[in-house]
């Protein structure tokens, strides 16, 4: 009887609780759907594209949307729809990879600085502050120019420029988590530092980091566009949404479709990632249900 009654109070076993919560969040679902949609477009671009994204047709320069060219053609007669698909690859990569870089560098540094404190923290923090004091776009421009113009380098530069925020955020979280009883409990059983960091600290600092990451994906996509504007982003003839917008701005009045579609795509993806980020925050937060 006693044991039987104990069964009652325990919530039914639920695997993937976070995912379920995510699935119940309409905003997150919508955001996820948008992101997924563009990911599919990017991955299957060669299959979906109606034209060769690089083939210019000298007779079809800056044609408005039509049955043949769904979203029109650009300034040297290439199909905008097909370029948009291929551009999704560059823009998503600029967003996702740069954030991945920022996470891979920033989170470990933040963990180490926050956990060990003292001299290590002082050193890392001073360095990060110095980087923070350089405006991030300037930093990205300088890095991208150093590495030479290419999408990968721009991505790397954006990632590095975004890193200090992640170090700060992670470090702040670690400082809060570090004093939790369960971390002390881990020390009390004699667990070495590495394992404490990996098993106790890391999983518990991740939730705000993930949210910040989705916002940063959005800013990174915009940053790629800015670098493209300065000639440091995706290299021609390969498209990115940013570089498409960049050329399109010269034709804003004569051929508005050149800017509307890549601009709209950026808006949708940014929206998608942010909604997803909001949803992830709710899903990762163990406090509410």
């Amino acid at each position, binding site marked *: 009887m006693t044991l039987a009654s104990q069964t009652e109070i325990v919530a039914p076993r639920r695997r993937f609780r976070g995912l379920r919560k995510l699935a119940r969040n309409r905003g997150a679902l919508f955001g996820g759907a948008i992101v997924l949609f563009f990911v599919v477009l990017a991955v299957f671009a060669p299959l979906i594209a109606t034209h060769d994204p690089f*083939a210019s047709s000298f007779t079809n320069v800056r044609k408005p949307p039509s049955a043949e060219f769904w979203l029109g053609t650009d300034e040297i007669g290439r199909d905008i729809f097909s370029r948009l698909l291929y551009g999704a690859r560059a823009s998503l990569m600029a967003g996702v990879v740069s954030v991945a870089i920022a996470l891979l560098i920033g989170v470990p540094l933040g963990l180490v600085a926050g956990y060990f404190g003292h001299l290590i923290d002082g050193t890392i923090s001073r360095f990060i502050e110095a980087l923070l004091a350089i405006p991030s776009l300037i930093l990205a421009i300088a890095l991208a120019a150093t590495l030479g113009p290419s999408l990968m380098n721009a991505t790397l530069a954006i990632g590095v420029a975004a890193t200090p925020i992640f170090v700060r955020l992670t470090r702040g979280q670690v400082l809060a988590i570090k004093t939790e009883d369960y971390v002390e409990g881990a020390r009390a059983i004699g667990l070495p530092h590495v394992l404490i960091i990996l098993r106790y600290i890391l999983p518990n600092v991740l939730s705000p980091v993930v949210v910040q990451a989705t916002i940063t994906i959005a800013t990174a996509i915009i940053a790629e566009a800015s670098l493209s504007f300065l000639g*440091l982003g995706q290299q*021609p003839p390969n498209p990115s949404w940013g570089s498409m917008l960049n050329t399109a701005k010269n034709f804003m009045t004569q051929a508005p479709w050149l800017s509307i579609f890549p601009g709209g795509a950026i808006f949708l993806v940014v929206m998608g990632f942010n909604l997803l980020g909001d949803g992830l925050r709710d899903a990762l937060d163990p406090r509410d249900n």
Partner: protein
Amino acid sequence: ADLNVALQDDPDILDPHRGNTFVGRMVFGPLCDALFDIDTSLNIVPRLVADWAWSEGDTVLTMNLRPDALFHDGTPVNGEAVKANLERALNLPESNRKAELASIESIEVLSDTQVAITLKAPDAAFLANLTDRAGMMVSPASFETAGEGGLVCAGPYKFVERIQNDRIVMEKFADHWDADNYHFDQVIYRPIPDTTVRLANLQSGDLDIIERPAPNDMATIQGDSNLVFDIVTGLGFYGVNFNLGNGERSQSPINQDKRLREALNLTIDRDVLNDVLGMGTYPPAYQPFSTASWAYNPEFDGGERDIERAKALMAEAGHETVSFEILYANNSAMQSLFELVQAMASEAGFNITLRPTEFAAYVDEREAGNFEVSQFGASGRIDPDGNFHRYLACGSAGNVGNYCNDELTDLLNKARVINDVEERKALYDQAQQIAAEDLPALYFYYTPRTWAYSAKLDGFVAYADGVLRLAGLKPKQ
């Protein structure tokens, strides 16, 4: 009244002996009178020099100065000042005019208004150089401060202030000898790099004149009754040059075999470039001399696009496909150009990789010979020598591809020391013949000198050198 003019870039240092940029020349125009000037047909005309004479053998130039020319600080532009300026241009360590004046042997002040220049050898381009920065006169009192914002010249306008990236303000110099011909009290040059923004400012009435509107905006400008579009063919050109002897990368097939270069040339349809990119403003170019120049020879033009022949030439050279890389400085005009070239050439089997590079790095790469094929452009000189010798003569400063044909160099050197136009033209024709054989460079189109300005202006004249001249320009009555 004020005149607001938009430039494409912010000029560099405001000292005619040290400046490097084209937009800098635009700004020097009204500020600093030169010894000579050109007319719309590129003839040399007097400016600070009232008249001049060459000695027998063309080695001594005697110039009579205008007696009424004053610097903005009130001092006269006299013989001593001319000598001091030329010597400064020759001797100042940072001077960029040395090459242009290199043929000077000595300068002699004969009187307040008379100066004689003795040359080491005849120099055909000498007078042309004196129409530009090398011939601009700076008040000797301001030699030290010129550049740091204290430029004192003898032009119809004097310098007031400069805010970097924002404006250069100049006001009318009332004591200028030709002051009556200048109708604006104040002239403001504003650097606006973005063509769309430049045009928008003109449309909104914030500007009166803009330089180099984008070709695709031509229709808009022409359709606007408040605006006027003007265009002349400039002296410069755009094309590509090949790395024929500068380091390892000169070893690639396209640089080793002129048949391949010929094939590439045959794939380029200049008319399409003109239509698609220039909206009709990019005059097709096949030679270094613009149609505005007397050295231009229509015989070297032509060569219709011919994919079949291109393929045949490639087959002859033993290639089905040829891959190479084009290096260029990244901006959207160059990007469209080379994307189009890439697309055109691919039809014959050329597999072109584009390497757009940030400008500073681009300059570096060219100097270092780290390219196979590179963007090739020149803003163009009044004298044909500046468009040819500098880029293709053996060992010349601008010859980054290290192309060297002794015969051609010989011809060009000869043309340098003859003042007779007919004789020189014959030499240039011969030189062109050789260049057309070797194909060290391809020319795509001549730089158009385009302008858009408010219909409220009267008396606007476009010059082939692209520099704005304010004489006679006035608001419509």
